[in-house]
C-alpha cells in the first residue's frame, strides 16, 4: 500500500500487486492528499527511528560517549567549552538532540507498536471467544471489560507499573521497564478491540457463510480464526492505528508522571518531560524538537487511522 509502488501496466493477468494497487482502498488512498502526506511523514519518522543506530550521528544510549560539558548547546551553535556543534542542539546531559530524538522515537514506536500488538492479540482472542460462545461466557467477559473501563488507561498503566515494580527484581528493572510499559499500556487498551471484535463476530457468526462452514462440520477454532477473523479485521485495523497514536502518547504521559523508560534510554515522552522543565529557562530546543516529532508522528498516524475509518466504511463512500 505504499504510494511509491510503481503503476504496473494493466496487462493480461492482473497480478496480486496490480490488484492491490487497483483496489478501491488503494484508489481512495491515492486520491487523498491527507492520507498520502500522513503516510509519507509517518514513514520518514519510522524509517529514521528504525535505522537510528546507523543514521544517528551518535549513540545517546551509550553513556561513555557523552560529554557533560556539551549540555545545553543551542542548535547550530558551537559549544563554548568543547566547540562541538549540533544540528538540533544538545540536551541537559550533552546528548545530541537529533540522535536522542531518533533513538527516542525508536523506543516510543517500539513501546507503542508492541503495546498495540499485545492489546490486539488479547482483545481479538477474548472478543472472538465471547462473540462466538455468547451466553454467560460473553456476559462474564464483557463485565470484566466493564471493570477495566472504569479505569482510564493512564490509571491502569500507573497501577500495573506499580505492581510490576514490586515483582521484578531490582537489577532487571532497567531491561524490564519497557516490557512493563508495554504490558501496562496494552492491558489498558484491549477492551476496545475485544468489544469491536465481539460485536462483529456476533454479526458474522450468523452470516450464512459461517453456517455453511458449520454444516460441513468445520472445527469452531477454524471457523473463528479462518472464517470470522479475516472479516472483522477492518475495524480492528482502524482501532489499531488510532491505538498506536494513543499508546505513544500514553507512554509520554506516563513518563511525565514519572513511570516510564529509564532516563538513560529516553523515549520521546521522557524527552518531552525533561524538555518541559527547560521551557521557562529558554532552552526551547530540548522541548520543541521532541514535541514536534511526537506531534508529527501521532498526528500522521491519527490522520491515517481517521482516513482508514472512513475509507473502510462502505456507507461513507
Amino acid at each position: 500500500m505504499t504510494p511509491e509502488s510503481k503503476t504496473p501496466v494493466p496487462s493480461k493477468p492482473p497480478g496480486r500487486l496490480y490488484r492491490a494497487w487497483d483496489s478501491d482502498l488503494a484508489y481512495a488512498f491515492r486520491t487523498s492528499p491527507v492520507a498520502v502526506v500522513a503516510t509519507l511523514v509517518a514513514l520518514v519518522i519510522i524509517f529514521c527511528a528504525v535505522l537510528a543506530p546507523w543514521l544517528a550521528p551518535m549513540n545517546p544510549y551509550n553513556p561513555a560517549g557523552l560529554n557533560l560539558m556539551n549540555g545545553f548547546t543551542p542548535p547550530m551553535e558551537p559549544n563554548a567549552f568543547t566547540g562541538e556543534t549540533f544540528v538540533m542542539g544538545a540536551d541537559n546531559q550533552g546528548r545530541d538532540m537529533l540522535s536522542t530524538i531518533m533513538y527516542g522515537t525508536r523506543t516510543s514506536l517500539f513501546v507503542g507498536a508492541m503495546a498495540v500488538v499485545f492489546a490486539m492479540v488479547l482483545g481479538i482472542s477474548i472478543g472472538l471467544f465471547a462473540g462466538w460462545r455468547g451466553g454467560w461466557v460473553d456476559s462474564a467477559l464483557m463485565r470484566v471489560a466493564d471493570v477495566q473501563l472504569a479505569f482510564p488507561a493512564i490509571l491502569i498503566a500507573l497501577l500495573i507499573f506499580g505492581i510490576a515494580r514490586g515483582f521484578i527484581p531490582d537489577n532487571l528493572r532497567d531491561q524490564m521497564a519497557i516490557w512493563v510499559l508495554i504490558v501496562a499500556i496494552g492491558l489498558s487498551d484491549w477492551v476496545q478491540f475485544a468489544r469491536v471484535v465481539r460485536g462483529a463476530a456476533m454479526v458474522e457468526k450468523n452470516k450464512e457463510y459461517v453456517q455453511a462452514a458449520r454444516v460441513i462440520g468445520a472445527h469452531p477454532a477454524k471457523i473463528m480464526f479462518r472464517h470470522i477473523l479475516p472479516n472483522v479485521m477492518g475495524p480492528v485495523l482502524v482501532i489499531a492505528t488510532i491505538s498506536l497514536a494513543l499508546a505513544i502518547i500514553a507512554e509520554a504521559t506516563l513518563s511525565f508522571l514519572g513511570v516510564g523508560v529509564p532516563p538513560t534510554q529516553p523515549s520521546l515522552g521522557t524527552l518531552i518531560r525533561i524538555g518541559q522543565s527547560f521551557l521557562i529557562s529558554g532552552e526551547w530546543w530540548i522541548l520543541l524538537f521532541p514535541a514536534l516529532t511526537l506531534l508529527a508522528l501521532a498526528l500522521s498516524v491519527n490522520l491515517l487511522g481517521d482516513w482508514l475509518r472512513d475509507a473502510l466504511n462502505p456507507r461513507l463512500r
Partner: protein
Amino acid sequence: MAEPLLKIDGLTRRFDVSKPWLNRVIEREEKQFLTANADVSFEIARGETFALVGESGSGKSTIAKMVVGLLPPSAGTITFDGQRIDTSAGIPRSLRRRFQMIFQDPFASLNPRWRVGEIIAEPIRTFGLMNPTDARKEAARLLEVVGLSAGDVNKFPHEFSGGQRQRIAIARALSSKPEFIVCDEPTSALDVSVQAQILNLMRDLQDEFGLTYLLISHDLSVVRHMANRIGVLYLGRLVEVAQGKKLFTEPQHPYTRMLLDAVPDLALSGRRRRPVEGEIPNPISPPPGCAFHPRCPLVHDRCRHEVPQPQPTPIGQAACHALDRVDTA
C-alpha cells in the same frame, strides 16, 4: 414405497425467549417459549424434491437448520437413510458428508475473504476426501459443472454477480458428493431471469446426480415448478402435505387456499384477488386450538379448542377440522 431417504418424525423446536431471570422474578412472569416448529412429520424419498412453503416466521428455516444439524431439535427425530441424526451427539463425518445446504443470500453465504477455489474445496478438505492438488482440480471442474469457467477459481466472490455466486454455492454443496441438499430459499434474492437459470440448473443436477432436495421457499410458483411434493407450514405446524401440482388445483386446507388466493398471477385471469384477512399471530402466544382459526373463513367452535391432527386427503394429508365436514366450498 422404498425406504425414504429422510424421515422426520414429530419434529419440534422451541426457543427460549424469556426475559432474564431477574426480570421474571420481579415481574412475576413465566418463562416464555417460542415454538418455531411443533410436531412436524414428513418423509422425503430418494430423488424427489420436497418443498416447504409458508409465510415468514412459519418455521421453514428452522426445519432446514435442524435437518442439517445446525440446531438440535427440542423433540422428535430426524432419520437420514436409516440413521438417526443426533445433533447434540455430533454427526459422524461419513453421514455429514452426505447432505449439504444452499443458503438464501448468495452475498452472505460465501466468505468474502476466500478465493472461490478455496470456498468450493473447503468441504473436500474438511472431509479429507482428496489431496490438495486434486481438490483444486475438482473445484475447477465443479465450476464448469455449474456453468462457470474453471479459471474462476482464483477470483474472489465479489467479482461475481448474485446468480453466479449462487452457482458457486451450489458447486460448494456438490463438492462433497452429497445425496441430499437442503435449499433454503435458493433464489429469493435473485432476479427472475437469473432465478430461472438457477432453478433449471438445480433440476439438471438432480437428473445428473440423482439428488434429493428439500426446497424451502415462500414463492408458491417456484415451489409448484420444482416440487414433487409440497408441505405447507403455518405457525410452525405442517397444515397440509400434498402431491405437487395437485395442491394448486385442489387445495384442501383453508390456509392453503387463502395463500393461493393471495398470490398475484401473470395469468390475468381477471379474478379479483381476495386479500387475506388479518396477519400472522405472534408465535409466542399462538391462538389455542387450530392456530389458523382467527383468520379462517370456515372457523367453528371445535377449531378454537382442539389442535387438528393430520388426516389423509385425496391429494395427501391435511390438518383441519373442516375436512370432517362434507362440503367446504
